């Protein structure tokens, strides 16, 4: 028998998938081939003929005594289930340091996003719509005669801006964050060029 074939037989033997006659053939090859015996002999002996482990004297009585004295536990308690991988990682010594680093990074990012009043915010300047634009959107939505939550929200924002006195509270929200800047004074003349563009654009929506 070739060593390559013998190794396949031996591995099947380890998996308990080998018929008895083939087990004898594998054993015979191990007895004849020094190379295979050196490589696979000790492992085969370990896996196929494990040494028994003796039971310590008195252990049975200790167990029964412990069982009698054991406190009762809730019926739904886990019978020795191993904690999940995430729980074990959370218990690792480095987990606390990593969590602290992440917390500091998040706090730094939040602090960098907060702007004092008057300090220009590049994001808000680029993305915040003007009140006139919001009013235009709201009017266009109303003209379409559809109940549109976007239009309703825009109309409400615009009404809030034009009906309430400036109090320093943010009137413009970008991505849910208040933009801490004074709203620009309304210039009806500057809003007119935007209205046709918005109406044309919105009229094509939802067709």
């Amino acid at each position, binding site marked *: 028998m070739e060593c390559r074939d013998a190794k396949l037989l031996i591995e099947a033997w380890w998996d308990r998938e080998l018929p008895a006659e083939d087990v004898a053939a594998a054993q015979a090859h191990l007895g004849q081939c020094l190379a295979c015996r050196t490589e696979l002999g000790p492992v085969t002996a370990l896996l196929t003929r494990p040494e*028994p482990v003796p039971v310590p004297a008195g252990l049975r009585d200790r167990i029964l005594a412990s069982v009698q004295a054991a406190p009762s536990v809730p019926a739904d308690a886990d019978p020795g289930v*191993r904690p999940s991988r995430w729980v074990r990682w959370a218990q690792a010594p480095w987990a606390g340091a990593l969590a602290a680093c992440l917390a500091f990074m998040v706090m730094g990012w939040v602090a960098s996003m907060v702007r004092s009043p008057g300090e220009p915010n590049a994001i808000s300047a680029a993305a915040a719509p003007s009140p006139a634009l919001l009013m235009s959107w709201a009017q266009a939505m109303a003209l379409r005669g559809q109940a549109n939550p976007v239009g309703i929200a825009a109309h409400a924002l615009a009404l809030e801006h034009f009906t309430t006195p400036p109090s320093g509270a943010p009137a413009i929200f970008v991505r849910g964050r208040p933009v801490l800047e004074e709203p620009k004074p309304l210039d009806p003349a500057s809003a007119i060029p935007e209205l046709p563009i918005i109406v044309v654009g919105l009229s094509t929506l939802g067709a």
Partner: protein
Amino acid sequence: MPTRCDNLSDAELVRAVLNGDGPAFGLLVDRYLPAVVAVACRIVCNRSDAEDLAQDTFVRAYQRLGQFGQCHSFRNWLLKIATNLSLNHLEARRRERNRYPRIAETRPETVEPDNDAVELPSPTQWQHWLSKLDESQRAAIVLFHFHELSYTEVADVLGVPLNTVRTHLHRGRRRLRELMSARSVRESESWNVVMQSC
């Protein structure tokens, strides 16, 4: 002397214990104590720890006997508890070693065998080889080879997919081959004598 209870199945004994028959649990202990001790000893590679773990296994099994599903194997359920407790014990010992390295150095570990003194592989040497394996590989090999659980049963006990069990077994065996093939030709000839005497 065989008694009437010796012929009862595991499920019947469990029902008897749940109905208040305390001595029936002693029969379950008698049946599975050797297997539980062997699993614990082979996974943690420390006999004194294995005794404590075996005791904890049966105490926990007794406390949670009501959770045992009668359609499952009581033996596998018990081995699952023993395996999980053993692996948890190893993790706790590793955390202690990392946290208090000086104290861990004084803790008695498995006795290192004198590799040059024996010709035939001794039980102590088998423990030595198993202790060189990764814990997951060691548990898979112990359950599959030493306790003859199937792949599916090993996957159920370890709580991992079937392919993971195959991977653990494959890598564990390969690691054992690398470690043990470094032994001398003289010892392999001694092994040949042992196999022929079977």
